[in-house]
């Protein structure tokens, strides 16, 4: 009985994540509009954009390689595949031993394949975006990998559910979660770090040659990636606490499911509000900032190795 509820919650969470992530983008745009004292687009604007792009022609430049065409679909598939592997307040029955490594691969791989596809378009602006994205990706994913290594070292398990169920309140996990939360902001390419798109500077960067359906896939996978990363960092940061407070009974699981979803949406909205107050930085400064951020997961790794 309980395990059926777990499966239902995981699938429900994945579906909610898929539908709500673009809506949260709409809420962010609404908040940005309110800060600038205007009405702003409707909440479903991002879904409308995607629906429109799906109905438009997809042009393929002469210089493009085959990877250019398949990359957005692969990136979208990787992000959708990562959704049901996450922890939605209930022990994930769909998970397996080693799924935390798979999540890491899917998260890194989706950004990587998207930028590789852009580089295959042959456009110089896309190449600049690609080089920036790769430098940012190397810096960011090191932090992500170290934070997840902390979780693995702390609990001695390679399964995300087991990591969360076994942890309790540990300083090392909290520091790792905070590092993940900050690196999520950087990696989801929000404004001070929106270097790979940079509309006024490199004309949309990695997305410059995409049009129609391919662009819709790329945008959707980009938005889903934000949600997946946010939920992953909240899984490390808050889910152990929720499990400690509510337990794994029916009511407790439902409560922690609702709270986890609400917090992840709230975090995305706060990110959007921060974004509307920032201007764009330079790639070297972004790299230095990310390199300084590396101190957090290193501390958490040391703490985890001495068993705190």
């Amino acid at each position, binding site marked *: 009985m309980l395990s059926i509820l777990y499966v239902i919650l995981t699938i429900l969470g994945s579906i909610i994540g898929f539908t709500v992530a673009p809506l949260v983008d709409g809420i962010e745009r609404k908040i940005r509009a309110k800060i600038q004292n*205007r*009405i*702003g*687009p409707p909440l479903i604007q991002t879904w*409308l954009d995607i629906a*429109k792009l799906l109905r438009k*022609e997809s042009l393929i430049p002469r210089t493009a390689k085959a990877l250019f065409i398949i990359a957005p679909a692969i990136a979208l598939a990787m992000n959708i595949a990562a959704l049901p592997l996450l922890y939605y307040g209930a022990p994930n029955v769909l998970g397996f031993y080693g799924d935390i490594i798979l999540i890491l691969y899917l998260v890194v791989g989706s950004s990587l394949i998207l930028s590789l596809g852009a580089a295959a378009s042959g456009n110089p602006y896309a190449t600049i975006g690609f080089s920036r994205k790769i430098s940012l990706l190397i810096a960011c994913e090191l932090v992500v990998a170290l934070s997840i290594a902390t979780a693995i070292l702390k609990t001695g398990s390679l399964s995300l559910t087991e990591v969360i169920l076994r942890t309790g309140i540990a300083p090392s996990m909290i520091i790792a979660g905070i590092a993940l939360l900050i690196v999520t902001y950087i990696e989801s390419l929000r404004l001070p770090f929106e270097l790979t798109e940079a509309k006024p500077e490199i004309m*949309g960067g990695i997305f410059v040659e995409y049009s129609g359906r391919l662009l819709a896939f790329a945008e959707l996978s980009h938005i889903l990636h934000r949600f997946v990363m946010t939920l992953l960092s909240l899984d490390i940061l808050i889910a152990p606490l929720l499990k400690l407070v509510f337990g794994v009974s029916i009511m407790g699981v439902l409560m922690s499911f609702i709270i986890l979803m609400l917090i992840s949406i709230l975090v995305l909205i706060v990110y959007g509000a921060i974004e509307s107050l920032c201007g764009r930085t330079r790639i070297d400064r972004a790299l230095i900032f990310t390199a300084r951020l590396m101190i957090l997961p290193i501390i958490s790794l040391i703490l985890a190795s001495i068993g705190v």
Partner: protein
Amino acid sequence: MARINPPFKKSPWIFHLNTGGCNACDIEILDALTPYHDVERFGMKLVGTPRHADVILLTGPITRESKIKVIRTLLAVPRPFAVLAIGSCAVGGGIWFDSYATIGGLPNLYEEMRHKYNFEPPPTIYIPGCPPRPEAIIFGAAQALGILKKKVKREVYKED
């Protein structure tokens, strides 16, 4: 002719294309994009590449120097899309309508592209004025999207 219900009615992404104008229309376009007029409430977004564009805001009389670039830009836009010809120059050449240095407005470009590139002209809204007011630009955009009805219709004069 303007389509009544294009797929981009709810989320037109606009691309700003100056074809050698004097910049006055461009300043008015930027004015139309400010928070004061708030075109994002129609879902409009300024994009940096023609590949993402649904509506092309074309200003200027299309100088000879810029002609080939304009043609390549229009060919790079995925269909369906619409064009707003903004300002007297884009509509019919303005005071440069018979200058050797320009081709005299968008209709002449369409004529040439139809013959040379087999290019079927997209729905086009002409917004005269030197420069047109931002309200006029937004009004024209709303007509192109089918939000508002056109107030004038095409009439052809025939001699008896």
